[in-house]
C-alpha cells in the first residue's frame, strides 16, 4: 500500500474534519443548552464568511479587526435569532423546532443570495498558499493554520466552560434548567449566550474555509448537513464528541474518497458520512461520548 497516499488522505481528513468539528461544536453548544436542533448551522458559517469578506474587500479593514467585527456581528445575529424565533417556541413539539431552523436556513440563504448573488467571490489570501514539506508530504500552510485555529478555539472554549462564571452557569442550565433557575441563573440569558457562541464558532469555520478555498459561494451552507453525522457519532451533547467526531468523519470521507471512489466512479465520499450515521444509530445511538438517557420512544 502506498503510505504517502494514505498519509495525505489522513492529513486532508484531519483538516477538513477540524472545520467540521468547529461547526459541530456550535451545534452541540446549542443543543446542550436549549435542546434545540439547529439545522441552520451551515448558514451561520456562510453568513460569517460573507460578512468577513465584505469587511475585508469592500471596506479594506485589516484582517484581525475584520475578524473581530465578524464575531461581534455573528454574536448579535445569534442573539437576535434566539430572541425572535426560538424563544417563542420553547416547550413546543420537536418538529416545530426542527422546522423553524429549516425555515431560518431558507431565510438566511435567500438573504445572502439577494445581497451577493450566487457567484463564487474571491476571498483575499490571508495565508500563504505555498505548500510546506512535512516529511515526504507537501502540506498547504492554510491547512496548518486551520488546525492551529481550531486547537486554540477549542482550548478557549474548554477554559470558558470550566473556569468562567458564565461558562459554569451555562453548564448548570444544560444539566437542569429548573435547578439553574432556582440558583438565580437567568436561563434566558444563557440561551442567548449559547446561540451567540455557536454563531461565532461557525463563523470561524466559514472564514477558514474561505481562505483555504480562495473563494466563497452558496455551497458553504451545505456544511450544516455534513455536521449531522458528526454530532451523532460524537454524541449530541458532548463537545469533546463533536471534535473527535468531526475529525473521524473528515478522515472517513477522505478515505472513502481515496479508496472507494475509484471503484464506484465517484460519489462515495459524499455518501459515506450518512452511511456511518445510520450504522451509529443502529449500534450506538448516543454516540461515542453522548450521555445515555433512559427514554422511551
Amino acid at each position: 500500500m502506498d503510505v504517502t497516499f494514505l498519509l495525505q488522505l489522513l492529513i486532508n481528513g484531519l483538516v477538513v474534519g477540524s472545520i467540521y468539528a468547529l461547526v459541530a461544536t456550535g451545534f452541540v453548544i446549542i443543543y446542550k443548552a436549549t435542546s434545540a436542533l439547529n439545522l441552520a448551522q451551515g448558514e451561520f458559517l456562510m453568513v460569517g464568511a460573507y460578512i468577513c469578506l465584505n469587511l475585508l474587500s469592500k471596506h479594506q479593514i485589516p484582517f484581525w479587526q475584520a475578524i473581530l467585527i465578524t464575531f461581534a456581528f455573528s454574536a448579535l445575529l445569534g442573539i437576535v435569532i434566539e430572541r425572535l424565533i426560538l424563544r417563542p417556541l420553547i416547550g413546543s413539539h420537536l418538529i416545530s423546532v426542527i422546522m423553524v431552523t429549516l425555515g431560518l436556513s431558507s431565510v438566511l440563504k435567500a438573504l445572502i443570495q439577494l445581497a451577493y448573488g450566487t457567484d463564487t467571490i474571491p476571498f483575499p489570501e490571508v495565508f500563504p498558499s505555498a505548500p510546506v514539506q512535512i516529511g515526504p508530504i507537501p502540506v498547504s500552510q492554510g491547512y496548518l493554520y486551520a488546525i492551529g485555529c481550531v486547537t486554540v478555539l477549542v482550548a478557549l472554549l474548554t477554559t470558558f466552560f470550566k473556569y468562567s462564571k458564565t461558562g459554569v452557569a451555562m453548564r448548570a442550565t444544560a444539566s437542569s434548567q429548573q435547578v439553574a433557575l432556582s440558583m438565580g441563573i437567568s436561563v434566558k440569558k444563557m440561551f442567548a449566550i449559547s446561540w451567540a457562541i455557536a454563531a461565532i464558532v461557525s463563523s470561524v469555520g466559514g472564514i477558514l474555509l474561505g481562505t483555504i478555498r480562495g473563494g466563497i459561494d452558496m455551497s458553504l451552507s451545505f456544511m450544516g448537513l455534513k455536521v449531522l453525522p458528526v454530532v451523532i457519532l460524537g454524541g449530541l451533547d458532548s463537545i469533546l464528541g463533536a471534535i473527535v467526531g468531526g475529525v473521524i468523519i473528515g478522515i472517513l470521507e477522505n478515505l472513502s474518497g481515496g479508496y472507494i471512489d475509484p471503484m464506484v466512479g465517484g460519489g462515495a465520499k459524499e455518501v459515506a458520512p450518512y452511511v456511518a450515521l445510520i450504522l451509529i444509530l443502529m449500534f450506538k445511538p448516543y454516540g461515542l461520548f453522548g450521555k445515555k438517557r433512559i427514554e422511551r420512544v
Partner: protein
Amino acid sequence: MRCGDFKTSYAADMTIFESNTARIMLGLFLCTLFTLPLYTPGYLLDIINRIGIAVIGAVGLNILTGFTGQISLGNAAFMAIGAFSNGYLAIRFGLPFYLCIPLAGLIAAFFGMFVGIPSLRIKGLYLAMATLAAHFIVEFIVTKWESVTGGVNGLSIPAPKLGSFEINSDARLFVLIFIIAVLAVLFAKNLFRTKAGKAFIAIRDQAISAEVMGVNLLKYKLLSFGISSFYVGVAGALISYQAKIISPETFPISVAIDYLGMIIIGGLGSILGSIYGAIFITLLPELLRMSTSALAHSYPDLVYKLAAMKELVFGLLVIIFLIFEPAGLAARWHSIKNYWKLYPFSH
C-alpha cells in the same frame, strides 16, 4: 342556517360530513373541479396537475408526521423510489399505468417501512437524522444504478395508455391525477375513523399511554410509515408521468423540506390542511413569477432574484406559521368559518 353542535350518537360524532349541505357542497365542488380541463389553458392546467400530485404527497406525509408524530426528512427519497420504480416497470416490463402506479406505491411503502424500523428504538430527533441519511443514500443509489434509473441522465417516461387511448395531454393527465387524489383524500379521511387511525393519533399524543392501552407500537408505527410512503410513492409515480423526464435531480432534499413546509403551513394533523398547504406552496413560485414578470421590463434584474425570493418567502412563512399559527391554515380557515357561522353573535 345551522348553529352549534349537538350530537347524540357516536356515529354522528365520527361522520365526515356534518350535514347534507356539506355533502352537496362537496359534490358541487367535485363536479366543478372535473370540468376544469374544458376551459383551463394548458400551462395553468399543468400547475393544477402539480397541485394534485402535491396534495397526495402532502396528505401522505401528514399521516406520518402530523397524525403519528414521526418526523421524516426522507419523503423526497420515497418519492424518487416511487417515480423510478414506476418508470422502470413501465419501460422495462411495459406494464400499464394502472398496475405501475400501485406497484410503485407498494415498493415505496416497503422502503418506507424499512426506514421506519429505527423509529422503534430512537426518538424523534434521531429519526429525523436517520431519514435524512436515508435520503442521501437513496440519492446515491439512484445516481449510480444506471441500468435501472438511467443515472444522471434520468429516464424518459412514456405516456400512460389505456388500451389505445393515450393519456398524453395535460387535460387527460388531469383526470388521472385528480381521480387518484380524490380517492387518496377520502381514504385518509376515513383512515382516522378506524382503529389504525386512532392508534396513530394515540402514538403521537403519548406513546407510553398508547402502549399501555394495548396499541402495538411496532405494528402501528410501521403501518403508518407504510401508508405514508405508499402515498408519497404514488405521488412520485404521477410526477414521472407529469414531468415525462425524471432524474435524480427531480428529488433533491429541498423537495422534502417543501413538503414539510406544506403540512406546517397547512396544518399538522389535518387532512384539509395538507390540501391547503399543497396548493399554497405549489402556487407560491408561480405567483412570485407572475408578479415579477410584470415588472421585468423596468427591473431586468428581478429574474436573478426570483429563486432567492421564493426561498425567502417560504422560510419566513414557515417561521411565522410556527410561531403565530402552529395549527396552520386549516385552523385559520376553521376560525374564520366559525366566526361567520355564528355572526353576529360570535365572541
